[in-house]
């Protein structure tokens, strides 16, 4: 389990990195290395070139503007988890991070790396999808943005070109006092989730649901925004019966099936977790608003 031969590049700027991407064939970007390095050690991938982004200082950092928080792609998961700003304005993200691997992997792992790896069970992918994040992508022609909804092209495949790289993720700030919950079912703490769910609820002054975002991870090839369930909730007063009805939408999911976990079980878990997360999010929304 030793990495295969590759050429190593450690550019100091995004421009330099994009230049390398444009010039070299069969490249892999090395961010925190918590997914790529195991894949190299296990020789699941044989890149000719590894481009290490760790020396590009401008890629890390968390900044807030009027309507969003922008997190640089190379910001360590640990720093996001510790960020008071994130905890205050994007508590769903903080809660999701508690499930991401372990202390040692969060110390090194980055948000950009996790999003680009796009494991269907990855917590940050589900959270970003649920928060309507926007991905900033640098390429030879400059920077473009892509909504998180459009970011996954397919199973573990982001919609970025070989000469492009993700530089940041921008999360719009939900209304203060919103309810949120991130839950997952994994066999062991810190493992990739079998099923995860991210929920965000905004209650109107009349206590009806003004906004609902629900995303399932681990169930489909890409994170599933549960638009039908969201539509079912908006405009109604929250309650267990309503949440159960929302959760029933999980029955129709074409869930992933693998040797360890049958599809029916994933569907059941999805429904269970969704109802629970909605209840938690509601309690939080009401706890703040009342």
């Amino acid at each position, binding site marked *: *389990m*030793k*990495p*295969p*031969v590759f050429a190593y590049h450690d550019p100091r700027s995004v421009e330099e990195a994009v230049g390398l991407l444009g010039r070299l064939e069969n490249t892999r970007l090395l961010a925190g290395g918590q997914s790529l390095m195991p894949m190299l050690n*296990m*020789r699941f991938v044989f890149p000719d070139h590894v481009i290490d982004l760790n020396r590009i200082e401008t890629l890390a950092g968390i900044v807030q503007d009027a309507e969003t928080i922008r997190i640089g792609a190379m910001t360590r998961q640990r720093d996001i988890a510790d960020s008071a700003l994130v905890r205050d304005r994007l508590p769903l993200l903080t809660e999701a991070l508690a499930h991401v691997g372990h202390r040692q992997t969060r110390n090194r792992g980055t948000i950009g790396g996790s999003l680009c790896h796009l494991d269907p069970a990855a917590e940050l992918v589900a959270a970003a999808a649920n928060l309507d994040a926007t991905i900033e992508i640098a390429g030879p022609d400059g920077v473009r943005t892509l909504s998180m909804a459009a970011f996954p092209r397919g199973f573990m495949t982001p919609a970025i070109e070989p000469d492009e790289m993700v530089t940041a993720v921008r999360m719009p700030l939900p209304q203060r006092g919103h309810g949120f919950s991130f839950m997952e*079912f994994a*066999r*062991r*703490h*810190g*493992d*990739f989730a079998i099923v995860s769910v991210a929920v965000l609820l905004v209650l109107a002054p009349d206590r009806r649901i003004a906004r609902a975002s629900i995303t399932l991870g681990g169930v489909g090839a890409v994170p599933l925004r549960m638009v039908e369930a969201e539509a079912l909730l908006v405009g109604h007063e929250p309650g267990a019966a309503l949440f159960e009805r929302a959760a029933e939408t999980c029955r129709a999911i074409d869930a992933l099936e693998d*040797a*360890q*976990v*049958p599809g029916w*079980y994933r569907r*059941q*878990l999805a429904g*269970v977790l969704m109802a629970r997360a909605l209840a938690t999010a509601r309690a939080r929304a009401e706890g703040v608003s009342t």
Partner: protein
Amino acid sequence: MSKAVADAPPRLAPGKGRVLGQPVARLEDGPLVRGRGLFAADVNFPRQLAMRVVRSQIAHGRLVSLDTAEARALPGVVAVWTAAEVSDIPPIPFRATKVRGLEPYCQPILARERVRYVGEPIAVVFAEDAYIAEDAADLVVAEIDELPVVLDAAAEPAEFLPGNSTEPTIVRKEYGDVDAAFRAAHAVIELDLSVGRHSGVPMETRGAIARYVAAHDVLELHGTAKKQHWNRDEIARLLGRPPTGVHLFEGHVGGGFGVRGELYPEDLLVCLAAMRLDRPVKWIEDRREHLVATNHSRQQRHLIRGAVDADGRLLAIDDVFFHDQGAYVRTHGARVADLAAGMLPGPYRLPAYRVAGHFRLTNKTPAATYRAPGRFETTFVRERLMDAIAVRLDLDPIELRRRNLVTEAEMPHVRPVDTLGVDVVLDSGDYIGLMDQALAQFGWDAVQRDLTARRAAGDCVGAGLAFFVEKSGLGPSDGVRISIDATGGVELVSGAASVGQGMETALAQICAEALGVDYRRIRVVRGRTDRIEFGNGAHASRVTVMSGSATYHAALAVRGMALDTAAQLLQARPEDLAIEDGQVVRAAAPGVPLIALAEVARQMGPNSPLMRGRTPGLTAERWFYSEHMTYPYGVHLALVRIDRATGEVRVEKYLVANDVGRAVNPMMVEGQMVGGFAQGLGGALFEEFRYDERGQPLSTTFADYLIPTLSEMPAVDVLIAEDAPSPLNPLGVKGAGEGGTNAVGAAIAAAVDDALRRPGAIVSLPILPRTVRRHTEEPT
């Protein structure tokens, strides 16, 4: 009775000693907490080559060709071998439980015409470093014609080789009139129960580093574990060298659990390469290799029938089981199947018993022993049967056990079966007494009340228990040599080995107690064939019993020699003298040192006038022999909570109660119990080597093979009992290595049944959430 007892040598006084029986700090820890240990991968020699094994990616097939040209051409590659290069080396032999007819099923060190499991070695690469070796291994191209696979040991046997079926033997044991008992039975209970494939999976993978020292004409093998002397003899035989020209060395071992230290193909390959390539050769198994190459264990399916009378008393058990041996029979022969057959009756009075263990080959990684081999499986099976009997007869499961447990008055209890070639004689025990102590410590009655209340509130919670009998102290012999040097330092040389369990501390404590020295001044040498001629190693919970007893005798002998010499020097009678903290004192005035052991040792040197005409040295070697094993026993109690919606099982509370005869170091015994439990928990709920329908292994990383982490561990309570010291050894000890693991699957299964309110729901291990979820679904 053992010879040692028959000759009535001194027995240790009962109760705790000054150091024996005390939870003293371990001697092993200093270098380990500093990262200064010497594990296999830490061993390096100048000019060493790295070995990399090319493994079959096909579960069963005809090996048509191996193209090694490209690998050989890679710069840095020194050699590439296939079976053709090692055709003179016979397959790996058995060391245990040899059964006639197993020989054709031995594993060759490199596959010849056939491959039989994914992970089987088919070629080896030797290169300048591990990176290049792996590069080269990737370049070896194997052409394999795939053959149908056998994956279910309970299916009809297939052909292994022309003339040899995949069922080389059936392990049969029987006593009493089983058929008559079933005819006369008030009730007959039948169950179909399975235990999944899992194994020891120590944190350190295997490793082997060989070098040939031409200056001394000695072949050295480093990174060894468990059974150095037997392995040395076999390596010598297979390579055509005298045993004195081969030496095995043990550094630190990162966990054994049964799987480390057996003779594997890689051990022979590094030795052979060190000789033929005339350079040191280092092989370190990687984790993915480990999960397909190192012994698996446990997988069995039992069709068990129990006959009982109207009071629930066992009349007979008739068990047919299928043992999934994997692709070859390795060093253990039929040991696990034999242990399962021999130990299944456990702690119960059983008038008639019949077992047929179908020992079957499949296209999976070969299997052998793992902590509590044959007992984790059969405790699950037997205790499931007891629970089912209780349900059928509407009896409390504890009352049912109370009626069937062998009583103290019936000890020693002869069971007319053998296992590991020795008769099963339960040597001592108060089973019912320990069960009562355990129920009290667990707070069983209060737990039951609490469960009732919680169920009323909607919780899915339950409790269960399981009784077990372990075995330990497998003979026949072990020896220890103790010497005191001229500085008063004590060296204890043992033929046993350390797998990280703390045996150095345990032997030092026994030696210190008997000799009268500080245990921290004792240097324990183990796992080295160059320091002692014979040894039987560290396995089967035998070290404290066998090597501990030998230590006791050797220490008493050295003490006697020291006192004789001191008496001569002091013009006193030896019986008036004693040794305290390394000083000879008058027994009547222990606070006044008369002469130091160091001085006594000096006076016993080869040039001392005292020694003229005698063998010099303050040193003695003693051997302990045993014809019978000693049987620790205990009970596990579990409280679980189930998440009805997900099927997840959480263990909330757990008690391991275990009578170990005498605890040499209670802190270490407790560590064995809790650590053993964690492994049992893995087998009960998490760990499983799964295969797809083509025999491709699905549990090949630590993300798929789920070892419990801290988050999955409940608080574990431990009850260490010393109520039934073994009469078979001078210390009264019974092994403590396996009782923590033995009954975990059984106890958790009982608790899950209870939580589900569905008796008999759990029929297989591991208990997966989705299985439980099926049971929690509301009936429609």
